[in-house]
């Protein structure tokens, strides 16, 4: 022990003094940042990509959207074309003998029993009027997605703008605008739609109007609450002391910092709008027959639930997928854009 100590001491002593000199580091070099520049959005996207459920949901939505909107240009059959000879045919996928998709229903080969020609088959079967269920399902999904787009549009155009103005102006403007929101949201959506039936025929128009009237309320509230916080942030005050106009402050400072809230809330507005339409159509005051929508498909199928269960299964799967995928993607976006909020 003592030896080692002595040795190192002599070794130290024998080192010439001028063997060391302080390293010269340039002052600017010391402050240099070496990490790659990541924007907030890039960072959020990186977090989002790690969330498998959100990514799978995203791709499911892409596939559904491509198929549904693709059916504008190519559909297996006209969704409203009736042909009573093909009435109530179960799903049949060519000559693949997959149970449930082989044309058998209740122990009978329905295609054979009805004397359908070889080579004629329907992937998702037909309904009582012989309409192709696949085409109807695609058309119905399309309606849901159109509703989704409409709801997003009103969320962004009315909800965000209303919320920013209310929060930014504050004071009396804010009080009045918030009372208006309370009045709007105190009237149930269903009542609004039923009242509209007095003026309009049931259909897409009255559903869209109902969404335009009240679908953006939650977005407006969230945006207002956050604008109230943001407007006291020192970077907003700095912009004001520089003489920035209110519109520019909203565009440069508020909207970018509200973007997570906006994206996340949109992802929760969409499924509720889709469900709203399906529900109205299901109870018969939404999309009128013979037009297809997920709601009308479900309500038709329900009447034949015991004899033709396949009619219910496929629209049900689609609406479940839509709701789940939007919600999971919304959750994923929230965790990615607002990491603090995840528990």
């Amino acid at each position, binding site marked *: 022990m003592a030896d080692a100590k002595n040795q190192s001491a002599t070794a130290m002593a024998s080192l010439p003094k001028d063997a060391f000199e302080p390293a010269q580091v340039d*002052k*600017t070099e010391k*402050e*240099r*940042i070496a*990490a790659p*520049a*990541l*924007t*907030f959005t890039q960072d959020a996207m990186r977090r989002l990509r790690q969330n498998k459920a959100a990514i799978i949901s995203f791709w499911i939505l892409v596939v559904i959207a491509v198929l549904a909107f693709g059916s504008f240009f190519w559909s297996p059959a006209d969704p409203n074309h009736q042909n009573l000879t093909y009435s109530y045919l179960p799903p049949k996928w060519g000559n693949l003998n997959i149970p449930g998709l082989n044309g058998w229903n209740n122990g009978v080969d329905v295609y054979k029993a009805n004397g359908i020609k070889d080579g004629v088959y329907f992937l998702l079967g037909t309904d009582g009027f012989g309409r192709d269920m696949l085409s109807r399902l695609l058309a119905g999904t399309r309606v849901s997605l159109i509703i989704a787009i409409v709801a997003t549009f009103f969320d962004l155009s009315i909800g965000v703008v209303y919320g920013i103005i209310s929060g930014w102006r504050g004071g009396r403007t804010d009080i009045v605008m918030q009372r208006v929101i309370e009045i709007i949201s105190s009237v149930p959506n269903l009542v609004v739609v039923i009242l509209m039936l007095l003026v309009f025929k049931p259909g897409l128009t009255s559903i869209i109007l109902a969404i335009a009237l009240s679908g953006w309320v939650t977005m407006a509230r969230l945006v207002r609450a956050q604008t109230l916080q943001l407007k006291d*942030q*020192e*970077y907003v*005050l*700095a*912009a*004001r*002391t*520089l*003489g*920035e*106009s209110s519109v*520019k402050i909203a565009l*440069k*400072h508020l909207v*970018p*910092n509200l*973007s997570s809230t906006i994206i996340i809330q949109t992802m929760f507005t969409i499924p509720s709008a889709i469900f709203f339409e399906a529900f109205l159509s299901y109870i018969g005051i939404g999309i009128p027959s013979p037009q297809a929508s997920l709601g009308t498909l479900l309500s038709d199928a329900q009447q034949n639930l015991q004899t033709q269960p396949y009619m219910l299964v496929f629209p049900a799967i689609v609406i479940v997928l839509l709701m789940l995928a939007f919600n999971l993607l919304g959750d994923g976006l929230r965790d990615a854009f607002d990491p603090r909020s995840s528990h």
Partner: protein
Amino acid sequence: MSEDTREKLVEVRDLVQTFNAGKKDEVRAIQDISFDIYRGETLGLVGESGSGKTTTGRSIIRLYDPTSGTVKFEGQDIAKLKNGSKAMHQFRRQMQMIFQDPYASLNPRMKVKDIIAEGLDIHHLVKSEKERDDRVAALLEEVGLNPDHATRYPHEFSGGQRQRIGIARALAVEPEFIIADEPISALDVSIQAQVVNLMKDIQDKNGLTYLFIAHDLSMVKYISDRIAVMHNGRLVELASSDEVYTHPLHPYTQSLLSAIPEPDPDTERRRVLVPYDASQAEGDDKARSMTEVFPGHFIYAATDEVAGYQHAAQAAHAND
């Protein structure tokens, strides 16, 4: 007196700022304060947290509309400037602010160069993208930052660096007067001196006038020519920096000074805290106003207290 020959850049008269007036949660943040800031000087504004310093700064720069009283900048009443008017636009260039929280004062979604160039864009001070980049680089250099970092986002910088970015943003519009609202209190002690020195250098180079707000006296003394002490929304003492430091007259100032720790352990051991009883010097119902009790030394006092303060001032100076 000699001070009167200097040009008054900012004149604050009987300024009152009340929040939520008439409601249950009414706050009288500033209650009737008056002071002047001369061109080229640094006026330190000290007081404990909640005493109304930030509100004073924000009223002067017209982030708040004063409840009553006037603020004049270069002789012009700033309350009369209309939003969106040409005069207001001009005023927004002449007066700037450096903020307290280096984390909240920079928009996290903007690149450093866009943060700094915000004023350049608003006031059309540059004509081309290239000129804009050059100006930003020069400003970054001026505040001691690496110009290569112009395309970075604020979260990549340390607190001290962010505060420098905030200073560069204020300097971009070439102001005459800068209000610095506790610019160093959120920073590490090791960084504080750097930022204060930077501000001093910039002031010398550009002939700026500062209102330097802080909650403790130690750093303020170093940068300020005169110091105003604030308490409960009122000014209680205003005098030159040395005067406030060596001959504090108001009991609140004396208490504030006694709270500064001494670097020397021997004197630190002997340091006695002077408690302050507000009911004695400002709490009762006597009418008080800022009174000059010694040349250039103002105290918030009632008429019957003036003689006592004058006496104390003369006694203190006789001992010099």
